[in-house]
């Protein structure tokens, strides 16, 4: 791909412009053609227009999906986007590595659940059924308050140290949530059932805010989207204010920020509290929507998922973290065990083909790769058939045209034995080799790697969907982060210059 840059036909260097300016301009002009012009056009769209587009798409989504899909995609995306926006305040803007974030999500959910459900604290105190207009603000405030309290001792910590303290807090919350069904103060009182223990709090009331009484998935979806839009607008205003600038300043250099008149410690506490408040809101919605809270809703896997959204989308960019929430939720749901192996296969081959079309330039190299794959695949299959007839009699999972092509090019033994495992190891070796090679060697290695991948897919991966799901998810994350280390919409940050 080297040497494909636009020819350096720049007349004379522009006086007064420095490297950064000319690089930016080159970057913009370099994107010639249709995609380049489209990208420049997209860049000129003002953020308010984006918001309108987002709302419009979100508004019609329930018309295009059945309830199950709306729950899996729409509501999940909206909730995770809310969580990602909150985490972005703490991590992306203020630069505080808060690993206790998921606990605030849980505190919001448990607060709502305890105040609006049939939960029994003791045998006599049962069923506090406060309405949503009281419990949602209380849930938000409780989460914000706990965020403040956790921030208080940790505000002088930074980086890894803060991460460890907050991670401990998350673990503490999980322990209390899972075992808080018999809390007694110093053994003086009989046990109070605070959290429902491992069973959580069932029978949580739906949200009731005067006339707003969502009960269906559609209604909760709209409720969450409205909350998301309100939170996003508020944050958008905030990051462009003195508070937002102070947060990014303290992320960049806390000592310099303090010496330029910004009270760093209070600003950290503010970021912690606002992030926690947003997580608390998301928690309250979750509790009402799934009519229950369980310790498993707030485990470290959820924390990592939210982090993955923020990092993949681009920490610091609001549009980025929302996009991250969309991408990760959708990918995770598409790869879920309920998706048929046939669809999964189509997706697998589709992604590989698109990647080849996009990444391999110029066209004759691509033609060589595709042609080489066909010839090599067919030859290997013929040879394999000659050696043992049963080696080509296995089932192909994919149907239709893709299935036909696979059947023509890939060896599909009826009794694969240990071959798939060896092939899997060989595939990993080949992939590693691909990352180390370039030029013609790489081009030569691609066809056998593709065939290996197809063989492993048909004989091993597709047979074990749960494992495959995580392998593909991981591979996708690695690929995306390698392509854009700053995240999809993030800006590249310079640490030391």
């Amino acid at each position, binding site marked *: 791909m080297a040497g494909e840059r636009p020819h350096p036909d720049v007349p004379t260097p522009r006086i007064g412009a420095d490297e950064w300016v000319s690089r930016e301009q080159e970057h913009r002009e370099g994107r010639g053609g249709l995609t380049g012009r489209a990208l420049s056009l997209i860049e000129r769209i003002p953020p308010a227009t984006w918001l309108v587009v987002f709302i419009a798409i979100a508004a019609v989504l329930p018309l295009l999906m059945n309830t199950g899909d709306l729950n899996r995609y729409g509501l999940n995306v909206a909730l995770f986007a809310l969580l990602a926006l909150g985490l972005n305040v703490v991590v992306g803007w203020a630069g505080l590595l808060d690993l206790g974030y998921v606990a605030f999500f849980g505190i919001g959910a448990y607060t709502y659940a305890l105040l609006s459900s049939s939960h029994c604290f003791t045998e006599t105190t049962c069923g506090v059924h406060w309405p949503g207009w009281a419990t949602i603000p209380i849930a938000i405030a409780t989460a914000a308050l706990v965020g403040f309290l956790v921030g208080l001792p940790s505000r002088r910590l930074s980086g890894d140290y803060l991460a460890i303290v907050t991670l401990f807090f998350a673990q503490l919350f999980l322990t209390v949530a899972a075992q808080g069904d018999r809390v007694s103060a110093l053994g003086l009182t009989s046990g109070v059932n605070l959290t429902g223990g491992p069973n959580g709090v069932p029978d949580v009331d739906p949200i009731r805010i005067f006339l707003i009484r969502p009960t269906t998935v559609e209604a909760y979806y709209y409720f969450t989207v409205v909350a998301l839009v309100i939170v996003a607008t508020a944050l958008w205003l905030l990051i462009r*204010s*003195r508070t937002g600038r102070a947060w990014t300043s303290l992320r960049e250099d806390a000592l310099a920020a303090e010496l*330029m008149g910004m009270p760093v410690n209070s600003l950290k506490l*503010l970021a912690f509290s606002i992030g926690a408040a947003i997580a608390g809101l998301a928690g309250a919605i979750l509790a009402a929507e799934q009519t229950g809270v369980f310790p498993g809703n707030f485990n470290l896997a959820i924390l990592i998922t939210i982090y993955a959204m923020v990092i993949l989308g681009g920490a610091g960019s609001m549009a980025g973290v929302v996009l991250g929430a969309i991408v990760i939720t959708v990918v995770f749901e598409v790869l879920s065990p309920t998706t048929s192996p046939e669809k999964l296969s189509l997706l697998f081959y589709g992604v590989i083909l698109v990647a080849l079309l996009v990444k391999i330039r110029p066209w004759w190299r691509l033609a060589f790769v595709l042609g080489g794959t066909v010839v090599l695949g067919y030859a290997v299959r013929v040879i394999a058939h000659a050696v043992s007839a049963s080696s080509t009699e296995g089932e192909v999972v994919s149907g239709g045209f893709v299935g036909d092509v696979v059947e023509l090019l890939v060896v599909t033994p009826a009794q694969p034995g240990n071959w798939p495992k060896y092939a899997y190891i060989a595939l990993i070796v080949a992939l590693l080799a691909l990352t180390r090679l370039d030029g013609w060697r790489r081009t030569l290695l691609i066809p056998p790697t593709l065939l290996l991948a197809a063989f492993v897919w048909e004989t091993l991966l597709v047979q074990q969907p749960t494992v495959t799901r995580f392998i593909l998810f991981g591979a996708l994350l690695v690929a995306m982060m390698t392509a854009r280390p700053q995240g999809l919409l993030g800006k590249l940050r310079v640490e030391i210059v």
Partner: protein
Amino acid sequence: MALFGLRGVSKSFGGLQVLSDLDMEVGEGEIVSVIGPNGAGKTTLFNVITGVYPPDKGDILLDGRSIVGLEPHEITKRGVARTFQTLRLFLNMTVKENVMAAAYGHTRAGVLRTVLRTPGMRREEREIHRLAEECLAFFGERLVGYRFDQPAYSLSYANRRRLEIARATAARPQLLLLDEPAAGMNPVETHEMTELIGRLRAEAGYTILVIEHDMHVVEGISDRVVALDHGVKIAEGTFDEVATDARVIDAYLGSSRADRM
């Protein structure tokens, strides 16, 4: 009465006495240079003034009021802003944002007013923009126009030094502390910096305390020069007085050389 004064300020780190019993005064509108060999305690002096470390003993007065024991951001709010010897810009923020951030201390709008976009908040925000552009325009064409939106990391070294000064002025200080403003600059830029420091007083009215190694700069700007060595004030006076002081020559060149001279 002097705008700013140190009264018997001492600071030690472990067994090392970095500042000992230091007295100093800076009058309103004065430019005072602090010189001394490396390790004389100059930057520590700035750190003690700005509240990075509390002094072990002594008092620091601004406008007749003690600023000892205040948090650094409170000291900045009272009217002391500084630059850093090792540049500490907010590298991933734009040039203009760097300067706007420093207006935090003298602005008010909180989270609620920001989210509600009250008229007062919007007026204040416009004022911050105007102030930032004004502070940057002080440096001529170098930091204005397309530079506003350029990330700070893309600036040249000399422009970073200028941006640090612009950022410090956006905090609206009475006393400006400049820590080696001409370090790493070429002779032309150094000359420009000398003029600039003069203009900061003449046009913007700042009182300036400056640490500088370049004696041309010190000679060009200073009303008075204070020489430090091992945390002790060894000489004070006009540039010529201090430059010819035996103890100053001694501190810079070592005693044996001084004896021979």
